[in-house]
């Protein structure tokens, strides 16, 4: 059996069901989920990207556990599954650890580097935000697997980002991932025009 995949339309349907679930018992509270990774790419408008999970960055979200459980149940999503079922979609709440993102100030709604989160979807009680696009792209360059590279190219094209924007975002990441992401940016710098890559125009290109 093939695993179910979330595309953009399906993802928006999930958020609508989550939003409805918050409303269902009349004791609704406003919740804000900060998505990153594939969900953000989908909400930026990708028609081709799919995913099996919705990753939520807890540090930049405004959520309580009861509401989370209710939203997951309402949208028939597994919540933080310890074992993945191939035929089940899931909501993964992520905190600092395997994944690292820059610091976020909830009081000021600003990410390190001074940019605010971007609102990508709004319901009655549920708001979906994402880090600034350059931060989403920078996070992907830490791993730089082929899917990440595809996502970053799409984000750059869709959001008009240049490599120096992503570099500036990388500079706000914790030290241990910063170096890796910067090194991986070379893959893109080598294939982009100088106005996007931030590299001086080369006459004859020495290969690295």
């Amino acid at each position, binding site marked *: 059996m093939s695993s179910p995949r979330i595309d953009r339309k399906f993802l928006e349907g999930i958020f609508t069901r989550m939003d409805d679930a918050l409303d269902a018992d009349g004791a609704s509270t406003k919740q804000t989920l900060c998505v990153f990774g594939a969900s953000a790419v989908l909400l930026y408008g990708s*028609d081709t990207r799919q995913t099996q999970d919705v990753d939520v960055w807890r540090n930049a979200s405004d959520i309580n556990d009861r509401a989370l459980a209710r939203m997951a149940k309402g949208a028939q999503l597994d919540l933080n599954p310890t074992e993945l079922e191939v035929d089940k979609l899931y909501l993964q709440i992520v905190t600092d650890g395997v994944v690292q993102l820059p610091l976020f100030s909830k009081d000021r709604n600003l990410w390190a580097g001074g940019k605010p989160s971007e609102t990508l979807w709004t319901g009655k009680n549920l708001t979906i935000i994402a880090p600034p696009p350059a931060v989403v792209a920078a996070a992907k360059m830490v791993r730089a697997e082929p899917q990440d590279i595809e996502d970053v190219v799409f984000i750059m094209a869709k959001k008009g980002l240049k490599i120096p924007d992503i570099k500036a975002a990388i500079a706000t990441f914790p030290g241990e991932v910063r170096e890796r992401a910067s090194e991986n940016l070379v*893959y893109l710098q080598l294939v982009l025009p100088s106005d996007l890559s931030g590299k001086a125009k080369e006459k004859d290109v020495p290969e690295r």
Partner: protein
Amino acid sequence: MSDREIKAAGEALLLKFATDPLAIPRAIKAKDFVSLAGIADIASREVSPSMALLHPARFRVMRRAISDYYVRGYALLDKDVLKRRALAQIAKGKQS
């Protein structure tokens, strides 16, 4: 000869991309500038209409793949930069 190599490699990558959406980022990661220069060049032109009559199935696949190339944002790839790198890569390959 180099132009022909680039074109052939580009066509091969485009046909691969038609069934494997990650073929292009894999080529980016592998620094396969010859294939990337080829695909960027093919995407920047129309697929020759004469191919529609000679190889209709191939024509359809290539047209669809080129649409997908743009939908995924690969218009950002610089065909001139890639061509310079491809030529350097081919020359290097011939030296070794």
